[in-house]
């Protein structure tokens, strides 16, 4: 690291004024970034990593302020600098990339114009040259046909494209420092790789310094020179990327490391030595002996969607839905079995139809064609509306992606867990119900005293547990896990994954595990199905598919995953 760091954060403390007085989001941290250096700030949610970056460019929201400490950027003290000065620095000297690229762009302004705005603001271009410079910037980020893209609106571009535009925007004025805040979260692995490679390439060739803020150690290790680990607002460790995996100093770092799934480790390995998970067993296929009737057989299942009506318009405005297109097949005639007691992984990138498939299997939506034979009966024939009343309902349950969204904000944890029981079991009597709920809570490791709380009073992990408890409340035979850990920090993910595995063994359920994270799939699943644009490209045992993939696409996916040095 050079003697005079480009960015020098010393003893920085950031406070947020809340109703319960000031809360320190960042507690007296020191971070240096040298010229041309790429530094990762790694941490879980609430670790204060983003706040730090906002503090650097001084875009903390009204409630937040730098309580003490200094941030000097090539000699200028950013804490005391006046607003005009800051505005001049932002975008020209220091620029930022955010997550959720589509939302990060002005939805109703041509992307070209948005780049021009920055160029003009920092007099990098005149009205005359702006356009060509903007196009040039787009070319730099490897956007095909930049002249056309110049006139495109964000919603007309894919997530990856948008992120490229954001990068173009950030680099348009040749800044010295780029802060990338979770730049690839929410993007598919393949896109993620492309974007990260691009960032690194561009910053390298410009000799820029980069701060990469991420929750993903793998990403950090793969792309950065140095890693700063933060926990609850403190920097707990700073080390070279190469070393940090080899010998992490701080226990938290170790915990994190461990929780990060890597090739050739078992579920149990994810947990800190301290906690004793279930006995680590080799992931030998547990599928029931061949020949026996599978629990569920899916035969060329099809789902077609009509062109979205204006109803979807809202979702669009919020950039939640992909651009509309004429009637298209979300799921295009797929067939597979789920054996009793096995965990079947369903992987693919966003829009590949895996969620649609799971929804059909859980009978939340009706298939357009094909059969879903569950334990002998074709439940696909029962309309979703009536399925609630069907005896099969209780046997197929689901754990949702977003624990927050999947809990009724007006129900206590207990009420949420009790809901299926009250609806579909003979069990009655307040006390019996209570007892059952507490039992389930214990089962999923949710402190019993918490079950009277409302969702907004629970942590992410706790909410996830409630969700699981609800799913298993009636001992279902098949549980669909729809990205159950996607919204969780790795350490929590580790625990939840183990919990799921343990429950499966104890209750003898089958899982359909829907995920985009191959590392996790590898750990949890017996067999894997890889989907792409509604069709199955490859299926087989976890080893086969993830070990020696046949399909090109699968290979692509695998290589795209950032591999922390094992």
């Amino acid at each position, binding site marked *: 690291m050079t003697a005079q760091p480009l960015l020098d954060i010393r003893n920085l403390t950031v406070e947020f004024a809340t109703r319960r007085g000031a809360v320190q989001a960042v507690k007296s941290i020191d971070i240096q970034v040298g010229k041309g250096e790429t530094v990762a700030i790694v941490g879980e949610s609430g670790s204060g990593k983003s706040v730090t970056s906002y503090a650097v460019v001084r875009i903390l929201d009204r409630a937040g302020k730098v309580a003490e400490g200094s941030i000097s950027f090539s000699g200028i003290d950013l804490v005391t600098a006046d607003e005009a000065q800051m505005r001049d620095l932002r975008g020209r000297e220091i620029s930022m990339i955010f997550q959720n690229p589509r939302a990060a762009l002005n939805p109703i302004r041509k992307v070209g114009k948005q780049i021009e705005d920055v160029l003009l603001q920092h007099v990098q271009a005149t009205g005359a040259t702006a356009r060509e410079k903007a196009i040039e910037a787009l070319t730099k980020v490897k956007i095909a046909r930049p002249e056309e893209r110049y006139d495109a609106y964000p919603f007309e571009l894919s997530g990856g494209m948008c992120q490229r535009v954001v990068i173009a925007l950030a680099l348009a004025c040749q800044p010295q420092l780029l802060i990338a805040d979770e730049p690839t979260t929410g993007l598919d692995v393949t896109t993620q790789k492309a974007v990260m490679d691009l960032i690194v390439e561009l910053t390298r060739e410009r000799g820029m310094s980069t701060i990469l803020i991420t929750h993903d150690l793998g990403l950090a290790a793969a792309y950065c020179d140095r890693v700063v680990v933060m926990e609850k607002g403190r920097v707990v460790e700073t080390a070279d990327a190469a070393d940090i995996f080899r010998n992490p100093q701080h226990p938290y770092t170790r915990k994190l490391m461990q929780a990060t799934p890597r090739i050739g480790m078992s579920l149990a390995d994810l947990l800190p030595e301290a906690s004793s998970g279930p006995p680590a067993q080799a992931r030998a296929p547990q599928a029931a002996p061949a020949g026996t009737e599978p629990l569920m057989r899916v035969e060329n299942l099809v789902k077609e969607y009509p062109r979205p009506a204006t109803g979807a318009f809202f979702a669009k405005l919020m950039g939640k839905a992909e651009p509309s297109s004429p009637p298209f097949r979300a799921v295009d005639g797929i067939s597979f079995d789920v054996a009793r007691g096995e965990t079947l992984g369903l992987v693919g990138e966003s829009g590949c139809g895996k969620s649609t498939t799971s929804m059909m299997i859980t009978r939340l939506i009706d298939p357009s064609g094909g059969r879903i034979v569950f334990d002998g009966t074709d439940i696909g024939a029962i309309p979703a509306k009536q399925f609630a*009343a069907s005896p099969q309902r209780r046997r197929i349950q689901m754990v*949702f992606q*977003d624990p927050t969204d999947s809990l009724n904000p007006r129900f206590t944890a207990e009420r949420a867990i009790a809901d*299926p029981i009250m609806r579909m079991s003979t069990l009655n009597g307040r006390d019996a119900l209570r007892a059952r709920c507490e039992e389930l809570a214990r089962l999923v490791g949710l402190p019993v005293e918490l079950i009277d709380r*409302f969702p*907004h*009073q629970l942590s992410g992990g706790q909410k996830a547990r409630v*969700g699981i408890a609800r799913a298993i409340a009636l001992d279902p035979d098949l549980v669909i896990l729809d990205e159950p850990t996607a919204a969780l920090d790795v350490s929590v993910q580790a625990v939840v994954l183990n919990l799921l595995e343990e429950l499966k063994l104890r209750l003898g359920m089958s899982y359909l595990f829907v995920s985009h994270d191959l590392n996790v799939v590898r750990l949890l699943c017996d067999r894997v199905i890889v989907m792409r644009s509604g069709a199955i490209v490859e299926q087989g045992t976890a080893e086969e598919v993830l070990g020696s993939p046949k399909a090109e696409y699968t290979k692509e996916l695998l290589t795209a995953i950032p591999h922390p040095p094992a």
Partner: protein
Amino acid sequence: MNDMSQAKTPEVEPVPALRFEAPPSTSLWSHARHVVSENPVTGLAFALFALILLAAIFGPAIVPYDPLASDTAAALQAPSAKHWFGTDQLGRDIFSRVIAATRLDFSIAVFSVALVFVLGGLAGVMAGFFGGWVDKVVGRIADTIMAFPLFVLAMGIVAALGNSVTNIILATAIINFPLYARVARAEANVRRDAGFVQAARLSGNSDWRLLLTQILPNIMPIMAVQMSLTMGYAILNAAGLSFIGLGVRPPTPEWGIMVAEGASFIVSGEWWIAFFPGLALMVAVFCFNLLGDGVRDLVDPQRRN
């Protein structure tokens, strides 16, 4: 009127506030105190509301004069210690009439809003939740009503059914229908596919149960805001009807009518006859509108911590 706008508010996703693990619980009450403390205007609104409520309940009992008793000897007297708000053409004490009128105006507002809440709210929720033809039908009805000049529609209804309190309430409810239907529809539609609704489906809830246990409770807050905003509008509407002679029957004291009666006296200098009822009217509507914002702050989960 102002409520019209609420229909389309949530266009853009709000940024989630900083999340710290396991947020501590906040009781509604302490939250209320906080909201009021950080926004004095809301506090004022709540105070006013309490005042109006008291007047509505005890008004007739506590007024100094019989609001109906005329005293032609004391007609058209300016405000004085004897008659705080002065007297009208028939020498009736305006203060007493203003207070006594609170109950009527208040109940007009409450009942009409309650009615439209049940009709419009339910229709809207169903439209948003079930979609399909239900949505179409409700949408059509709402459109048709919206296509009317609302105030004139209200006039028409009252004129056609006869000017009684019941009909005024009915008319007000009807012209507010589209508003409620739309808001409820939008809200229900957003939540329709929310995780917790899906989860409830998996728990074997029938659609109707979902509607009642999952969707409705979560829409209540927004509707509550709606209601308090509409209450003001309801009163104004009733007043407007009275002004063009379609109000309640004389000599029943009602703010709108009193303003209408007093209107012709403003120019001749007896300003107080119209002024004080007008003031009461304004204060009430004012209070309800601010209350709307207050309620919004109260129920807005984002402002919870």
